[in-house]
């Protein structure tokens, strides 16, 4: 019995090692072969991460998600953007907002359906929202060196239309 327990224990160690080593590189041959078996375990315990901090490139540049609030006639009555320029005493609050912005910029479907629904919950009189994503730029080192541009200047944002989210009843209540 002790041998049986020992075997199970070592199998667990091997399994956890496999998860730790293979999960960050799931596109590899081994990763693709084992993913169907380890996915439930990884998702359940939230061991899914690719450890790509500032990698491959330390992007992205400054990002914004913008919107126009539409009334029942489809006319824009107000606009806004996220994250706002508000400064927070605790950095973590800003960091999570930037993480959220990136999350939506990388997927138009999420942007439309999750962020659009959130805006509808916040603005209960809105009929819908027209959504955009905007990407700034990083100042060139030599431009900053010569004084042509400030390092804090995100430059002109390139705006791309995402679509229109119409508020549904369960989004409004």
């Amino acid at each position, binding site marked *: 019995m002790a041998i049986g*327990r*020992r075997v199970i*224990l*070592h199998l667990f*160690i091997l399994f*956890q*090692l496999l998860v*730790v080593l293979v999960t*960050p*590189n799931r596109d590899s041959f081994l990763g693709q072969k084992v993913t169907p078996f380890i*996915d*439930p375990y990884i*998702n359940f*315990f*939230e*061991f*899914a*991460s*690719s*450890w*790509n*901090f*500032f*990698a*491959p*490139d*330390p*992007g992205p*540049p*400054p*990002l914004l998600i913008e919107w126009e609030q539409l009334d029942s006639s489809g006319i824009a009555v107000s606009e806004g953007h996220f994250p706002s320029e508000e400064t927070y005493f*605790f*950095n*973590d*609050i800003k*960091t*999570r*907002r*930037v*993480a*959220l912005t990136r*999350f*939506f910029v990388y997927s138009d*479907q*999420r942007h439309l*359906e*999750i*962020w659009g629904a*959130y805006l509808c*919950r916040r603005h209960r009189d809105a009929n819908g929202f027209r959504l955009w994503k905007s990407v700034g730029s*990083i*100042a060139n*080192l*030599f431009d*900053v*060196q010569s004084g042509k541009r*400030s*390092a*804090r*200047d995100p430059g002109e944002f390139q705006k791309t239309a995402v679509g229109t989210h119409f508020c549904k009843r369960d989004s409004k209540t």
Partner: protein
Amino acid sequence: MKSHLWQYFRAWEKFWMGASGETQVRALRVLLGIHLLIAYGIRAMDWKFLYSRDGVANWKNMREILPMSYRFSLFEWFSGDAAILIGMGVFLGLLALWCIGKRNVWIDLGVFVLHVSFLHHNLMVAYGMDLIVTFFIFYVLISNFKTREFNGLSIAYRFAQIQVCVIYAYSGWEKLKGVAWWRGEALWTVLANPQIARFDFGWTSHLPMMIIFSTYVTVLWEIYFCVLVWVPKLRRLTLFIGMLVHVGIGVTLFIPHFASLMLLTYVVFLTPAELNFLQNKFKMLARLPIRTLSKP
């Protein structure tokens, strides 16, 4: 052949079961408790936007759009703002117990379950720190289990060490795919990003060689950390460079919690003597204000 295999197996067993690691895992738990109490206490201030019913995370929406299979949250069954607030209170309370060194399997399990529940309740606002912490809380939980065959403490200790190595190795290798890292300008693109840099680092544009040098040191150190930290003569230097990197990140960018988390995981590479030395130094520093104020 058989004796060689048996030798390797004995070495494997000694590595996983024979390490002490009690001081290191105990220190890791306390430091994690302090760190997470602060980080998640701050997150709790933003609970309305992050987790409430009127907030950005709508469970039904997310379940339909995100890959949420096998991802569960206590707040799926205990929904509503009251449940979120109670969950937060309990979570922070359990972390406070970690801070004062209280431990048992139920406290550790509670921390792990609540941490993952909050993570799954809104994956959109998770970033590196949240994902790294999951592993170390899991290892702290494992450390509670000890039988004749299973030395959870030793296993947890070894996994914590391997985890730090894996994080740096993959992060470093991934950087090799990036043009900015090859060109030596990666640090500039971080410092000149107003969304993540704390201050105006425009003055560093006049020190391009410093930027290039720091960029290459960062990527080389990350890639080779997993080897150098196991070499006794290079361990302290490797950890010292890591300390410089993470203090730099904490000071210059809006991610101080990530930087401090990576630093505190270094306790798993310190010897008990080194940990005691640091603890005594910290106690001395903590008593300094009292001594200074009580001087006539």
